[in-house]
């Protein structure tokens, strides 16, 4: 199913996240990712939700019902052609330093911590697909733990 990103600005108040997630549950979606941060305007939060849906009218329904909440100031769908969708992953690995360096050129990660026993913590940012590819190439056998932020998105 097609992955969709919904960007919403809302009042930074307790209970608003609750309302948004309840609505999405009521509409029978399983949220793929959900990220919240403070918006530029004080008192507002900026939320990016991704979920899977092929039918554009159903997404429009979710958006118009989100808009109805008095705390939600604006909502829209972002499409991949006209916006950047990015996430960050922090990965703990057990890997040989030299082997790791061979990925540096393509994935441009930042090493946060590296110990002599080949345990390394690094951070990599990019599209979901890029991070998936990175993890794939590194190989599951090297990975101890992964923390991913989920998608945040910005219109071009």
């Amino acid at each position: 199913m097609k992955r969709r990103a919904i960007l919403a600005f809302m009042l930074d108040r307790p209970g608003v996240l609750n309302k948004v997630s309840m609505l999405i549950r009521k509409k029978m979606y399983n949220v793929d990712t959900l990220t919240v941060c403070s918006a530029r305007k004080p008192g507002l939060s900026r939320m990016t939700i991704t979920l899977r849906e092929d039918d554009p009218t159903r997404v429009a329904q979710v958006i118009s019902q989100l808009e109805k909440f008095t705390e939600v100031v604006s909502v829209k769908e972002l499409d991949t052609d006209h916006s950047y969708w990015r996430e960050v992953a922090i990965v703990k690995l057990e890997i040989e330093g030299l082997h790791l360096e061979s990925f540096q050129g393509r994935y441009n990660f930042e090493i946060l911590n590296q110990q002599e026993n080949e345990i390394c913590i690094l951070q990599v940012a990019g599209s979901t697909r890029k991070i998936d590819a990175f993890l794939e190439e590194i190989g599951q056998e090297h990975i101890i733990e992964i923390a991913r932020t989920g998608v945040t998105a910005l219109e071009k």
Partner: protein
Amino acid sequence: MTGKELLLRALKNKGVKFVFGYTGGAIMPVFDEMDKQGTFKFIMSRHEQGAAFMAQGISRASLSTDEPQIGVCMATSGPGALNLVTGIADAYMDSVPIIAVTGQVATGVIATDAFQESDVVGVMLPISKQTYMPLHAEEVEQSVHEAFYVATTGRGGPIVLDIPKDVQNQPVSENYRFDARRFRPQLPGFFIHPTPAREPLQQAIELINRSERPVMFCGHGVINSNAGQLLQEFAEKVNIPVAFTLHGLSAMPADHPLSLGMMGMHGTVEANRAIMEADLLIAFGMRFDDRVTGKLNEYAQNADVIHVEIDPSEIDKNVATSVAINADVYRTLHVLLGDPMLTYKPRRRWLEKIAGFRQVMAEDLRQEIEAGVGEGGKLLMKSIIHQLSEVTAGKDLIVADVGQNQMMAARFYNYQTFNSWFASGGAGTMGCSLPMAIGVKLARPTERVWSISGDGGFQMNAQELGTIMEQQLDVKMILLNNGYLGMVRQWQSLFFDGRYAGTPMQSPDFGLMAQAYGIPYRRVETLAEVAPALQAAIDHQGPMLLEFICDPSELILPMVPAGGGFEEMMVKRPQPVAADGGKP
């Protein structure tokens, strides 16, 4: 001043006259203050659900009067608040503005699972338009004013104010000021568009002028925006027949030549067949729910749809529109009526065709109403409602419950008074009628109010007979007793091989019950007694309970089976299938 005083000051400022409720630990300070001040008429319900429906009755019935009021109900924390849930969810589904005030445990113990603590805001979030939990006395007044604004602006809905006990008692600082007249809620995310945009209006007019087989739809929005008169003028001006949703009934006289009656699952043949063949639907203030449309992908396939609706999230939700007008119904009709481009058409062929649809069931219904009893000799509900309509000239206020009794009351009362039909539509809550009728009577004291229930629904909130007794309320009660949960029985006889699982019901002696509450009572078993009994209730000053012994096998027809298309509309009782499974 304290939180509780500010709460009451704000309610008074908003024109509240009645408070319905039930006390308990966490709301005691407010009740105490209310008693001290004597500002409101307090009406004690016998169950909090009753209080919520009474509040609905006030809001629904008063909106068309010179003094619209918003119904207010109050309950204590925990079980008290939770008992309001059904009434609030019902108001939410039917877009009825009410204010529910609940006491909450003190802020110091919130989230410790204190005695009678429940997460009221959490429970109410998905079933109310907005919730407030003021944590300081300073926030109370503003929350109430904002609550009224949100409840009544745009599409109406219930608001919950959950006020911790210590906040009720907390004094505000000396510098506290609140100017109710100057107050404007700061709601950057609250948008309404009451005025119709020019462009879609033009497109709508073009479609209307071009159409050959148009049908207008009258929904709850017509009642809520007090636009009945305008709708009728518009229908007459363009000569287009009007079908009604359950909540659109009584917006226009039911016997108007352009009226098609109710549409949908138990709608009339003429409404449903006209919709099937229409080339244009013009919907005013409605949401195309499944009881109205039946199977969506078979619904009005050849019609363009003009949808006038104040809530933008209802547009294109179930039915794709050709022209969307996100605006207030009253204003839209007002602008449309003034537009010189709009033309009258005789539509002779279309109206003749519809006249044919009207004949499909007319003779059967006429005969049934005249016979008045079913095969077993018991009374038919439709005949009782028909007679009620006759003796009251269709002018009274009707508050129906849920079930066959409701559909009969919707179909066979000849509504003449604007906003005279009250029922639970979206939620279909059994037991709503008795308490809602109490609110309706208080809002419209000079008009006669009839509560119509089945034996099932009557017993769901029968405790409110106590409220009627205590307040000496002149509510006429019609109990259509068929010994069954009749509507479910109807489905069982049509779709479950006549196996009556969980629907036969033993009832108490309703005469003794009425007597226990000091309410006069009559039991009616024959056709000849029906009109005199109704007249006796009219002549009696005060409440009266009339119990009619009804035929359990009566069906409300037509019926579009749930999930079916209008093609499948049943207009006749299906013939019983022979025991060997062969054709009858």
